[in-house]
């Protein structure tokens, strides 16, 4: 049977994998380059949403596409859904501080 994966890691240095379809909590497979790796999802994740590949501390940068897309605002466990509830833009924050 041909192999099938559920999430894609867009760059090998990324902290996140992205769901290729709506996924249930539990065991999933992430593709990173040539490699396939299991990832235990803590919660259901919709298509296009991110999952942490490893634990991330508050204030740590989050990388996707091999670049920083923001910083964690809360402790994020491996396999957790990563979105606006636990990360924020560095750019928008910088802009907000300039305006104050």
């Amino acid at each position, binding site marked *: 049977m*041909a*192999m*099938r*994966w*559920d999430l*894609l890691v*867009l760059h090998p240095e990324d902290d996140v994998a*992205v*769901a*290729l*379809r709506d996924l249930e909590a539990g065991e999933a*497979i992430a*593709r990173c380059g040539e490699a396939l790796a299991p990832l235990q999802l803590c919660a259901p994740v*919709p*298509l*296009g*949403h*991110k999952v942490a590949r490893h634990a991330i501390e508050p204030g740590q940068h989050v990388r*996707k*596409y091999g*670049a*920083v*897309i*923001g910083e964690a605002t809360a402790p994020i466990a491996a396999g957790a859904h*990563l*979105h*606006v509830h636990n*990360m*924020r*833009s*560095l*750019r*928008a924050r910088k*802009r907000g501080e300039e305006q104050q």
Partner: protein
Amino acid sequence: MGIAPEFLGYPRADGSAGTRNRLLVLSILGLTGAGAQRIARQVPGALLVALPYGRGQFGEDRAMTRRMLIGLGRNPNAGAVLLVGADRQRLDIVAEGIMASGKRVEAIALDDVHEDSLALSDRGVRLAAALARDMSRARRVPLPASLLRLGTECGHSDATSGLGANPLAGLVADRLVDAGGAAVFGETMEWLGAEHVLAARAQTPEIGRAIVDAVAQRERWAAATGEDLTGNNPGAENIRGGLSSIEEKSLGAIAKGGSRPVQGVLPHAAPIPGPGLWVMEGPSFSPPSVTGFVAAGCNMTMFTTGPGNSYCDALAPTVKVTVNPKTAARLHHQIDFDGSGLMRGTREPEDAADALFAQLLDHASGTRTWGEVLDEGGYAFARLGADF
């Protein structure tokens, strides 16, 4: 490395290559659009492009319009050009700019026929017919892919765009750049938040600064109209689709340009100076954005979409790409390349990119895109200022 990739194209006098051989009927003033349309209709295969304005323009706005007219005329997909206008002075400026490429140009002015639009189109049809007959002698020959100039664009995005379709287009742009060709992408406002990443990929620090400055300039223009481009970006629909920050959204957009060093920031519609990856300062809406690429010399365009988007360029064949499985299934007569295996988790990105690059060469060699079959091609002239 295997053998150097090739396509079948029309060699042009200036060393460029046509992927099509169209007679371009180019109306350079809003007064002559109808007469030019009568001419184009009577010569099958002719393509009409009509500037809807052309007087009362000043400064950079006028310079950009001239660049677009001359650039569209010089585009290698036009085998010959019939210029239509009101006065000889403007026609001569555009004609000289186009003829510098060695291309055959004829021009007809309303002044030549004492402002008689019917006489204009009668004389114009005769000139166009002669051009069409002569340029039909051109033959396709094998040419290196290094002569391809590819504009990449995305229109009507969804969650699959930044995740699959744009990175796929980027892998194809990388393949073309590695083969010695050129790729360009634009939509300055979509670099916002990722301009530092693009700048870090610039060939020199000066180019990096030009990238950052281009975004800052558009932000100032927006601010002057009361718009704050970072405040509510990404929007609610983006957030539902999984995007958490402006950086993430923009990185997904610029992924369509690939990963090669940026050779320079081109003003809108300015000629592509050489091989490699270029970025073009310009509007984000697809019709004027893509027209800028084609005026810059692009002989092919690649257009990614999420839910679908029927817009194609009139002169440079547009290869429409989606990775959204529903879109690919629903829009059979719009989507040229179905990359939905990427979203199904059954197809590797590199494998899909090899197939899409091969298909790009096939379309460059003459296989028609759906947009060409259905005559969806359009164009739009961007502006930078008010009419006076």
